[in-house]
Every structure is written in C-alpha cells, then in structure tokens.
C-alpha cells in the first residue's frame, strides 16, 4: 500500500527536509505534515510544519486529526558530536517512545512506520563478522552512549512492531553517509588535509550517498516491506583507499594504545572524534546490503563512487561558496502561501480531477488563440487531453485543436523514440 497521508518527524533535520521535498513531487501523496521543535531549514511547497516539543508529547493529536497513514521517523541522532549526550538520549529514547505511543492504539489510522536507524546499531568490535546481516543483532552490549541510545530505540520499535500486527514497521539501518550537503563527524574528518588513522589499523568502511538515503526512504514509503534493512552501498573500502580516492595522504597520528587520550587531545585542536567513531577507526565495519536490493531498490552510487563524488565536491567547494541567503522559515509567509484565497495555486494534478469540465489552464477564456498556441508546448500530455476536451466543448477553434493534436503526436513520437 503506497503511503498517502504522511507524517515526517524531524522535519528540520537534514533528512526530514530532503525527504519532504522529495515526497512533495509525488502526486500520489495527498498530505505531508512535518513535525519538529525547530523550524524547517529548507523551503517547502506543500508540506505543513507543526511545531512540537522535543518529547513529541502532543503528537497523538496531530496524527489522529490528520488521519495519518504513514509515519516516517528521520529524527534519530546517530552522531554524538552534533549534540550533548543528554539531549541525544532525550531525543533518541524518550522521543522514539512518544512517537510510538502516538502511532499506537486500537483506533489509530497509522498503517506504516518507517524508522531511520544506523549501522552503529551493530557496533565495531574485534570479533565482528566482515558483513553484518540484518538478523544478527549485536554480538556485544553497546559501549558508547549513542550506540546505547540506538539499541534502546530499536528495541522499543521492535516491541511496537510486535504489539501492532496491522502496522508495517520498517527499520532502515544506514551506513556512514557521504554527500556534499550532509554534515557528520566522518565528513568533517575527511575535510582535513590528511585523513587521520590509528597507527597499525586500516579499517573497512562502507558508505551510502545522501541521495540514496532519501531514495531508500521513498522506496519503502511506496511499498509494504516490514522488517529490518541495511542500507549501505556496494563495495567496502579500506580507509587508506578512501584517503587515496580523496587525493589526501593518510596520517597514522593516533596511537594504537591510549587512543582515547589522544582523541581528547585532538578535540582540543578542533578535530572532534566521538567515541563511536574511534571504534570504527580501529575495527571498521561492513554490512550486507542484499536484502534491500532484493526488494527492487537500486543504489545510485557504490561506496567508491560516493567517495569520488564527495572528493569532487571538496575540490569545487571553495569556488562555489555562494552568498545566497540561507532559507529562513517565516511562519506568516508560509501560512499566507498555503491558506490565503488570494494565492493562485496550480490545479491538483493527481487523478482527483474535478468532475465538471473546467479548464486545466487558469483563465483560459481570457487567452487569445495565439497565447494558447504558445502555451501548448509547455503542457503535459494529461493536461493536453483535458484542454482538448475543454476546447472542443467550448470554443472548438480549429487552429487550437490542430496545435494540441500535433503536440500530443509529438509526445507519443518522443516516447517511442525513448523506447527504441
């Protein structure tokens, strides 16, 4: 069952914003509501933003009022450098609990829950397998606060899935993300002139490109795929290989013993190495990604291609630093754009065309034949057909009909051309 009425938690996070943008262009999605305690950081056309507290206590009322069928939770903090452990715990454990409570209950309209998690769930240990499989679970109890949070959050999601057989619960465990726009500790690490490593270790790393993250979330929202899926691109690279692809030397500056102390020193120098990353720099991690691929998902980038794309961005970045004002959310403006009767909105494009034969082009009556002819080229096939029907019912101008017919023919021809 494809999702129609979607609620995104963590709208102001990078992933929430990207996902909302991507879903907006899907005509099958009727409603997108985003909740967060901060204002969205990207400009959104039809997503509605609702401000809720950190703990998502009032979420239940939003879900029920909007008859949400799908909740996509993109809010999990998986990088302890971005916030304090306390805030992360509040968000990851208490927040998840409240979101699950908002989706529970006998009368709930929620049929699908998509939970964005991380491969930090597995941890990094000496006796790990080279590829973690979804069913494996953690071989050892978590060692760092962020891993503890992730394991705890996933445990409550699993419990929710067990209690609610009617809801398709999907957990996506994402590998380290790379991309020009996203921020993470590893990306900050790769921005340094050399790639710091622990002396005597060359860990295996698997990445996923930021676009693939959004695509994977979309992919799941269009299907019913309960269960856990690893999301990591094909190919596992050694860190030295990553450094080579980035065109940087690797610097084994961290000692193999007393690494924690050295990391503390590095933090003073401005290089934040959170504890979960320290474990990964030592032992590395690979995950098996075949389960998601078997559902028909294809990755846009391999791990290697993701690194290369990121390296290209790093080289171009100093030239492209633009002085475009970053987007700022203004409640009044957004409200005006969404609510005011004075705003002209494009007619709804999905199957729910009004039954009365109204014109697909606004103020069609006022346009002259010449103006219509210049318009015809820019229209989609669906609109062209509607326009043709409308024209034959109303004016039935021969020149206009002929132009529409030829445009329709062109569309077919180009489609055939593509097919061949």
């Amino acid at each position, binding site marked *: 069952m494809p999702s129609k009425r979607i609620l995104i938690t963590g709208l102001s996070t990078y992933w929430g914003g990207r996902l909302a943008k991507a879903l907006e262009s899907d005509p099958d999605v009727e409603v997108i509501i985003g909740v967060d305690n901060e204002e969205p950081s990207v400009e959104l056309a039809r997503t509605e933003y609702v401000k809720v507290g950190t703990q998502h206590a009032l979420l239940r009322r939003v879900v029920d009022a909007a008859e949400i069928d799908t909740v996509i939770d993109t809010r999990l903090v998986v990088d302890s450098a971005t916030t304090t452990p306390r805030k992360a715990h509040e968000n990851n454990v208490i927040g998840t609990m409240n979101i699950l409570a908002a989706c529970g209950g006998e009368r709930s309209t929620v049929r699908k829950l998509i939970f964005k998690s991380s491969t930090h769930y597995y941890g990094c240990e000496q006796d790990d397998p080279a*590829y973690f499989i979804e069913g494996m679970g953690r071989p050892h109890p978590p060692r760092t606060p962020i891993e503890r949070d992730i394991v705890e959050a996933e445990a409550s999601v699993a419990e929710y899935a067990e209690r609610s057989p009617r809801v398709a619960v999907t957990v996506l465990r994402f590998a380290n993300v790379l991309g020009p726009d996203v921020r993470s500790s590893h990306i900050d690490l790769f921005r340094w002139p050399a790639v710091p490593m622990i002396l*005597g*270790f060359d860990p*295996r790393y698997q990445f996923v490109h930021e676009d693939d993250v959004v695509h994977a979330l979309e992919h799941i929202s269009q299907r019913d795929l309960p269960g856990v899926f690893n999301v990591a691109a094909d190919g596992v690279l050694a860190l030295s290989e990553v450094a080579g692809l980035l065109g940087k030397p690797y610097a084994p500056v961290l000692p193999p013993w007393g690494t924690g102390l050295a990391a503390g020193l590095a933090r003073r120098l401005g290089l934040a190495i959170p504890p979960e990353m320290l474990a990964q720099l030592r032992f590395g991690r690979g995950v098996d990604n075949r*389960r998601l691929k*078997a*559902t028909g998902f294809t990755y846009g980038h391999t791990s290697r291609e993701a690194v290369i794309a990121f390296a290209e961005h790093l080289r171009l970045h100093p030239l492209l630093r633009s002085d475009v004002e970053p987007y700022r959310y203004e409640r009044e403006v957004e409200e005006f754009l969404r609510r005011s009767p004075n705003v002209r909105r494009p007619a709804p494009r999905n199957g729910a065309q009004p039954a009365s034969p109204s014109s697909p082009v606004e103020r069609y009556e006022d346009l002259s034949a010449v103006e219509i002819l210049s318009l015809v080229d820019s229209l989609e096939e669906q609109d062209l057909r509607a326009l043709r029907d409308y024209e034959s019912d109303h004016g039935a101008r021969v020149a206009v009909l002929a132009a529409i017919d030829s445009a329709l023919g062109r569309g077919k021809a180009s489609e055939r051309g593509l097919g061949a």
Partner: protein
Amino acid sequence: MAESARTRLSVRESEQPDGGPASPLPARREDLRRHMPGVEPDRRLTDWGRSERIEGALDRTLVEFYYRYWFRAEVEGIENVPATGGVLLVSNHSGALPPDATMIAKAIREEHPQPRPVNITVEHFFKGYPGFSMLLPKIGCVAAHPANVHRLLYDEQQLVLVFPEGRKGTEKLYKDRYRLRRFGRGGFVEAAMRARTPIVPVCVVGAEEAMPVFAQLTLLKRLTGLLYTPLTPTFPHLGLAGMLGYLPAKFKLRFLEPIRFDAEGMHEDKGAVQSTAHEVRARIQENLFEMVSKRESVWFG
C-alpha cells in the same frame, strides 16, 4: 589488549520476516546470492581488504624463496582440489608464525592447473593487534567468523583454508609434533555442510621442524599482549624478525580426496557433523603418520 574470545565456526542467526507471500523478498537467505555486489575493476583492494599488489609482491619474493629454495616444497594430490566452486581446505597446524598456510596457498598457485586465491582464516585476535590488523587482510587473511566462511564458500564460491586445531595447534610443543589436537567443535564441518561445498583435507609435514617450539613464555605473552610467545631457535632473542627464522626443513604437502556434502540441511544434524569432523581428523592423522614414517631425513625428505 584483551585476549580474544574462542573462535567458533558455527553460528545461529535469527531469521527476518520475509513479509508474506506478496513480498518481493526471497523465502530463503541463500537466494540473495544473485544480489552480490559487482566487481569494480579500478579498485586495488577487494571488499575483504585483499590487495593483489601487496600479495603479489610478497609472493614473488619472500614466499617464492621459502617455497622453492628454503623448504623445497613437494606437493601431491593437487588434483583433489576442485577447480571451481567453494572448497574448504582443512589442514594440520604448527609453528608460531605458521608457514603452513602460506605454503598451501603457494602450492595451489604454483601446481594447480587453475590456480585460485586462498582465503586463510585467522584468529579474531589479529584484527585487534596494530600492524597485523593492517597487513593480514591485504595478503588474504580473513577472521575465522562463521558468517565470513559461509559468505566466502557459498556466496563467493572461493577457496577457504581453516585450521580446526586453532591456537591449540600453534601452541603445542615440539615433543607433541604431528599429533593432532582436538578439532574444535566441528564448526568447520557445519560451515561446509551449510554451504554444500566439499572439504579437502590437507596434510603438511615439515612445518613442525621448521619452527620447533620448546616452551611457551607466559610472562612475555603478558607483557606484549601477543597471542602466543613461544621459545623457538630464533625467538624471542632475535626479536620479532625471529618469528620468520625458519629452519630449512623439507616440506611435503598432500591434498586428500574431497569429502562432499550434497544434501541440504545436513548441518542441522549434530551427530553427522561430529562424526564427519572425527573422520576428517582421523584421515589427516593417518596420512601424517604415514608421511612421517616414509621420511628418511627431516632436511632432505
């Protein structure tokens, strides 16, 4: 550095829900084999971290020297190693820095009509020890995790070499030479049965004399955090390089006839697993004694 946990070659993993009959997911995990990642020709390492460049450089120099001139390895029964598909090579083990694994890999590369790279399973310990952690994957060593062995055997159809004696084999002293230790808990048989790949038993004679171990130095082991610190003719008084100080014993390698497992689900049968493990051990032991009894000189064969 903490001592590594005991290496096991059997594992249980919980099954994931397949999502019902309408789900696009295959019913069994085994069917995911066709979704294996493709090979990127521009890469210098494999997904396991193996580097053909480093391996090749070592192979042409150090390994070549030891194989051809120092140990003068003699190989029989190489035709028992199947040319295609996954194969589990099972061998006896000895020596502190065991030369047997490298010599078996080299023998296949040199003598086999269709040579293939051998994946050598090693203790998890090495992944946690600086230096080893970096080097060993580059030359084709893989941690002896059951999931790793299964992926290599079943999904990638490769050659995997295991030493079921494990540490008990490399720790044993010179006086116990050529007497096989216990073969773990039969995890290697389970791995082969699960992947439905043949087991090829391998006997190596000469490795015990190449690096005789007179004692285990427990104090040094504590101090260095190494897996084992034996007293050999060259170690520890010549330092870590002494680990490579092999005596020029004559090496003889014998590949025995493969044991095949074609039926599905055999690995569930603990009895069959145990009896097969015993059978493999007995065959290697028998052949070892025979090879040693025919040997006229330790140094000249």
